[in-house]
């Protein structure tokens, strides 16, 4: 049971009633803020990594990158495994679950004679439209091969719509390599 505390409105004393004294006190508070802000000692400036004036970080010059948490959801990207194989097997689960329909996959067949013919498919084209992407992370969650990950890149920019569509090459460039479990690409399975 939460404890209920009844608060009463404080009654004004004589100095509050005069009002000018109140204004004077308020002015001192404001000035104190201004002074602290100028010497870079505003409350929270330390933890917010202020650039020296107030609590603001001067963004393009200074970045927050090393403070991003492990679970940060930035741009989705494809990853390769330790043997530089494409992890993606074109199951298209991510394409189907993607809420804004940002992902477009054209699957390609792995030919019969190939060493990895048992994997059957790998993406011929894999495009993520970063204008549509909402960084929800459902693609990462649904992927059975752990082939798509949300990286920490957040400054995705471009000067045209075409530039904002990440193709396969770009996705692997962002994604890089990821060591760990593979299912279909596993020899033993």
């Amino acid at each position, binding site marked *: 049971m939460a404890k209920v505390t009844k608060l009463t409105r404080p009654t004004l004393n004589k100095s509050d009633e005069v009002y*000018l004294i109140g*204004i004077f006190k*308020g*002015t001192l*508070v*404001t*000035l104190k*803020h*201004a002074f*602290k*802000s*100028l010497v870079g000692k*505003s*409350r*929270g*400036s330390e933890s917010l990594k202020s*650039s020296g*004036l*107030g*609590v*603001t970080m*001067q963004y393009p010059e200074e970045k927050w990158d090393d403070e991003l948490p492990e679970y940060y959801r930035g741009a989705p990207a494809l990853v390769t495994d330790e043997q530089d194989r494409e992890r993606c097997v074109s199951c298209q689960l991510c394409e189907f679950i993607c809420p804004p329909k940002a992902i477009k996959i054209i699957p390609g067949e792995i030919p019969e004679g190939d060493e990895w013919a048992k994997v059957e498919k790998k993406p011929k084209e894999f495009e993520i439209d970063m204008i549509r992407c909402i960084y929800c992370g459902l693609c990462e969650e649904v992927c059975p091969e752990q082939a798509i990950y949300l990286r920490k890149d957040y400054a995705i920019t471009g000067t045209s719509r075409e530039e904002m569509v990440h193709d396969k090459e770009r996705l692997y460039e962002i994604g890089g390599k990821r060591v760990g479990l593979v299912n279909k690409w596993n020899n033993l399975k």
Partner: protein
Amino acid sequence: MEALIPIIIVIAKVIGITFVLTLPIIAYSVYAERRFAAIIQDRVGPNRTGFAGLLQPLADGLKFILKEDFVPSHVNKFFFWLAPGLTMVPALVTLSVVPFGSALFGEKLVIADVSVGPLLVFAIASLSVYGITIAGWASNNKYSFFGGVRSCAQMISYEIALGLSVIPVLMVFGELNLSNIVQQQSESGWLILPLWNESGHMFSSAFWASPETHERLWLWIPMTISFFIFTISIFAETNRMPFDLPECETELVGGYHTEYSSMKFALFFLGEYAAMIVGSALIVTLFLGGWSLPFGWDSWVFDTFGNWAGLIHLGVFLGKLVAFILFFILIRWTVPRFRYDQLMKLGWVVFFEAALINIFIATVIIAAPHLDKGPLAALIIGVIIFSVLMFYIAKSLDKMLSSDGSDDKELIPPAENANN
């Protein structure tokens, strides 16, 4: 040729003081407002355009010029175009009587050295209410109209307090020429800091024994009251923050300039700052010694710099002006906006009466050395009776106003109360 020289001097003064000094100060006070406000709120403010954002006013101006100058179809075109000029022009015209410094090569640094300084300022400055009211009315929009009506009532109310509070000051100086007023303060101390200008003289016992000092110390009381009323009224006159009801964006969208865009809006915006600068200049001139330096340093400046002393004094004046503008900004981010009835009550119930009583107090102090004991006692009793009467009127007005529906409880209709 001989006849041309005074004209050239006047033109040089007009261009120098208006275009070289005041307009950049107006532009940069907008920048100062943004930077200082940001610093108070632990932010940074505009710091990208040029070094430390110093080119921001130019960028703002360019933006205003390049924007579409949109005139809605439902407005009264003539007055819609007239209004922005009517707010900007009076503020700039009043600058003509403000002394910016002492003499430079024998020429006083004031455009018009007229002997009706404060009267001219009040007469012209009160015209700017037309600008705002006409803007509100011509916009043909209910929010703009509210803003215009509010500003009309507000500025007329506070003009009374403004005029009454300056009367004791003018009685002390016995002078309406602003240059001479500053000259007097330069010689015998600033009005609200009367002991500053004695250059060590104040430590001698002869100084404290002299009746002149006594009179000045006594006068310090009404002068301080005048200073407070005058400063706060200037805040109301210029629609600055605790009193910016004509344009309060939370209630009235944008107030009287809702329908304005581009350069026409810029004129309103800059007109407000121009009025603020004129107000600060007036406060500095009347109460804080204008261009004069404290502690009798003025004579030292005159001896050392000779003909160039005017430039030093110009710098001093601008320094005081900038300090006052920063004070305006500081108050803006300290005091929240008044409710409209509170604003009116402050003007009519508090300041009006206080300024009236103040005039009589100053009168008694000035008249005291020239009167015998009997008439003086009668005068003092008369002032006390008058003050009590005024106080009683203020109290009853206050009671009448607060029982007149402005009370929060009575604003809720009883039927709705029952439902809740």
